[in-house]
């Protein structure tokens, strides 16, 4: 083990974990591009996006936590972290809208796929009957 590892603070190690995870997800994307697998590449980009989004949210949580600790130290000023919590909730609302749009797209895609599947099955049944 690298001796310098022992001198790293927990936040530095955590930061490295995040970078490792980003690198892994990016390698998955690069591999999919090399293999010319569009679906896999899309999935890799989606995973990278979801992971980044989660990291941003965790930073918000950390900011709130620091705000609470500060407010606790000085006694009565909790305005800053209350604002962060309200912003967090508002960004969740935006995320919810995006997810709902995605749900609608998936529903439409599924309906289209099922319609094509039905047509193919009917054609096959007609041929078998003939």
């Amino acid at each position, binding site marked *: 083990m690298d001796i310098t590892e022992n001198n790293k603070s927990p936040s530095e190690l955590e930061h490295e974990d995040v970078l490792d995870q980003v690198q892994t997800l990016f390698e998955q994307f690069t591999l999919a591009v090399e293999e010319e697998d569009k679906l896999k590449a899309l999935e890799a980009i989606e995973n990278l996006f979801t992971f980044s989004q989660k990291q941003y949210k965790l930073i918000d949580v950390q900011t709130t*936590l620091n705000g609470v600790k500060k407010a606790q130290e000085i006694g009565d000023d909790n305005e800053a972290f209350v604002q962060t919590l309200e912003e967090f909730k508002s960004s*969740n609302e935006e995320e919810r809208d995006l*997810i709902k749009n995605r749900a609608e797209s998936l529903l439409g895609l599924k309906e289209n796929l099922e319609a094509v599947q039905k047509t193919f099955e009917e054609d096959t049944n007609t041929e078998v009957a003939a």
Partner: protein
Amino acid sequence: MDFLETNKRAGALEFLETAIQRVEEQQDDVQLSLNSLDNQDEIVDAALAAAEEDNFDEILEQIDLLEEAVTEG
């Protein structure tokens, strides 16, 4: 019967089945994400309520829960 066409159709049907299955999995993921957002919002509301009462222990507890919810979500 055109066997070549029938084989092509069988391949396409198999592909469609896989694609539909994949979409269903994504629909499940979407539902889980929505549930996670609901859960996070409930925690934020509880933290805001605790902030109104200046109950710092409760706020810190809720923020721990929020971190957990975001990590798992």
